[in-house]
C-alpha cells in the first residue's frame, strides 16, 4: 500500500511526518519504502542518511529533426500545442524545455524526419537506511517539468509492504502526480491562516480522487477551532496533533529525526498509524 504525505503550503512538516512514520513502521516490523517525490527539493536523505545504492539517470523523449529528410511541410509545428517545435522558412527549430514529450510531432511528420531522442531531466537513486528501503528523485537544476521524474520514482516502489510517499508542496501537477495513485493521503498543515487556506485548496484539489484521507496538524500550541471546523466541513478527521516544541525544531534543524532525537514523541507516530491502518487496509504483518 502507498501512503502519500502532502500539503498545499510548503514547510508544514511533510518530510518530518513521512520520515518518522517510516521509521515507526520499520520498528513495528513492516517492510517499508520511503519514496522522496519532492524532486525539486528532495530532503529526505538529510534525515535518513541512506547508504546509496543504484543511481540512474531519467530521460524524457524529445524530437530531433533530420534536416536532410525534412521537407518543411510544417505539420509538426502546426500540431504541437506547446510551441516546442517551430517551422521556419529554411529549417525547423525545437525548444526541448517547452516540450511535453507527447510524441505528436514525430507521428504527424510526413517525411519521417523526426526521431525522438533522450533528454535527461534528473536521476532516481535507490538505497537503504537500516531496514528501510529508500528511493529518491532529484530534478536537474534548470529543468521545469518534474511529473515524468515523479512517475519514475513511483514506478520503482515495490507493490508489497508499505510505501510512504513524500510529496512536493502545492496543489498543481507535481503534487497531484505524486498523490493520485496512492491508497491513503495524509495532509499535513499548521494552525496559521496560510496553513488553513492552503489545506483547503489541497482538499479541493484531491476531492475528485476517491482516496481516504486524514489531516496531521503540526506545531500545535493551543486548540485550533478554525482548522477543526474546516476539516469537519470537508469530512476529514484530524488524526494527529504534533505539538509546537523547540526540541523538535532543533532536532530538525540539525538533520535529526524526531524518532531518534526526541523518543518521547515516538508514540505520536504509533497513534497516527493506529488511525490510518484500519482505514487503509489490514497491512500489519
Amino acid at each position, binding site marked *: 500500500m502507498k501512503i502519500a504525505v502532502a500539503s*498545499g*503550503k*510548503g*514547510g*508544514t512538516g511533510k*518530510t518530518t511526518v513521512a520520515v518518522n512514520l517510516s521509521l515507526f513502521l520499520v520498528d513495528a516490523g513492516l517492510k517499508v519504502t520511503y519514496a522522496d517525490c*519532492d524532486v*525539486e*527539493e528532495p*530532503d529526505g536523505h*538529510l534525515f535518513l542518511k541512506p547508504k546509496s545504492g543504484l543511481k540512474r539517470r531519467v530521460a524524457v523523449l524529445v524530437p530531433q529533426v533530420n534536416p536532410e529528410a525534412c521537407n518543411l511541410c510544417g505539420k509538426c509545428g502546426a*500540431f504541437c*500545442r*506547446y510551441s516546442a517545435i517551430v517551422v521556419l522558412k529554411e529549417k525547423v527549430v525545437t525548444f526541448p524545455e517547452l516540450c*511535453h*514529450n*507527447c*510524441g*505528436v510531432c514525430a*507521428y*504527424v511528420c510526413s517525411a519521417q524526419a523526426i526521431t525522438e531522442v533522450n533528454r535527461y531531466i534528473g536521476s532516481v537513486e535507490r538505497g537503504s537506511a537500516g531496514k528501510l528501503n529508500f528511493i529518491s528523485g532529484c*530534478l536537474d*537544476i*534548470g*529543468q*521545469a*517539468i*518534474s511529473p515524468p521524474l515523479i512517475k519514475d520514482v513511483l514506478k520503482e516502489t515495490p507493490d508489497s509492504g508499505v510505501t510512504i510517499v513524500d510529496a*512536493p*508542496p*502545492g*496543489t*498543481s*501537477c*507535481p*503534487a*497531484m502526480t505524486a498523490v*493520485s495513485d496512492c491508497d491513503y493521503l495524509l495532509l499535513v498543515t499548521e494552525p*496559521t*491562516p*496560510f496553513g488553513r*487556506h*492552503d489545506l483547503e*485548496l*489541497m482538499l*479541493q*484539489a*484531491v476531492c*475528485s*480522487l476517491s482516496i481516504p484521507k486524514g489531516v496531521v496538524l503540526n506545531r500545535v500550541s493551543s486548540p485550533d477551532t478554525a482548522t477543526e471546523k474546516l476539516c469537519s466541513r470537508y469530512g476529514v478527521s484530524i488524526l494527529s496533533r504534533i505539538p509546537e516544541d523547540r526540541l523538535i*525544531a*532543533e532536532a*530538525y*534543524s*540539525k*538533520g535529526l529525526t524526531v524518532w531518534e532525537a526526541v523518543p518521547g514523541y515516538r508514540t505520536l507516530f504509533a497513534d497516527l498509524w493506529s488511525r490510518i491502518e484500519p482505514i487503509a487496509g489490514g497491512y500489519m504483518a
Partner: protein
Amino acid sequence: MKEIVVISGKGGTGKTSLTAAFAGLAGKCVLADCDVDAADLHLLLQPQVRERYEFSGGGRAEIKAEKCSKCGLCRQICRFDAVRYSADKKSFPTVDPLACEGCGFCAIVCPADAIEIRPAANGEWYVSDTRLGSMVHACLRPGEGNSGKLVALVRSRARKIAAEDGSAYILIDGSPGLGCPVIASVAGSDMAVIVTEPTISGEHDLLRISALTKHFRVPTVVCINRSDINPAIADRIAAVSEAQGLEVVGRIRYDKIVTEAQMAAKTVNEYTDGLVAEEIMTAWRRIITLNKGRE
C-alpha cells in the same frame, strides 16, 4: 523600475510574510503573487478585485461516446496514461482530467473522429487594489497544471501596471521548489531574494535554488529567517552564501509576533516595531542600496 522576486527552494521559510513586509516599506510598488497554486499574499493584503480574467493554459481531450467505436487506439498512444477504459471495454473510454496534457495526439489518431480538444479552465487571475499598492494575483484551479504560463501572465501585467503608474518596485512572491512556476517567476527579474532558514534542509535547498538563479543569471541575495533557531547553522549558511558570491542582506530572528501579524492580516512591520521589524527593515534597505548601485 526593479523587479524583485522572493523565493526559497524550501517551502515555509517565510517568503510571503517578507514579501508583504518589504512591500509596506517600498513606498510605491506593485505586488505580484506568483505562488499561483497556493497563493497566500491576499490573506494579508485583502485586495479589492478590480479586474478578473479566466485563465486557460491548455486544452483537454473530450471523448464523445456517440461517435466512439471503442477501438482503444487513444489509450495506446497516450503518453500520459490519461485515457481510462474499464477492463471489459464495455463502457466508453473516459479521459482523466488530471493526467491529460491536452497534446491532441488522441484526437489526431482517432479513426471515428470522436475526440475533441477543448480549452481547459485552469484558473483565474486578478488585478486588485490593496493598501500597499496594486496587486496582480491568481488562483490556479486546485489540481490544475500550466502554472508557468499563469505566472508569466501575472508578471507581465504587473510590469505593465508598474510602467504606467511609475512604481519603483515590483515585488514578486514566488513559489517553493525550483520547477516550472519558479523558473517563470525568476527568469529575467532584476534580483532574487532567497529566504532560507538555519536548518540542514534550508541549507541544502538554498544551494539548489541559488544554482538555479545563477543558471538564469539573476543577481541573488540571501536572507536568513528565524536565524536564532540554530545560530551555528545560520553562520554556516552565511559562510556558504558568501563563498558563492551571495550577499546575506539580513538575519531575521524568530518571533511569534510574525504569526500573530499573519492572524491579524497585517504585515510584520504594520503590526510591530520590535526587533524583528527592524531586522526586516535593515534587509530591505540593503536590497534597495544594491539595486540603486546597479542602475
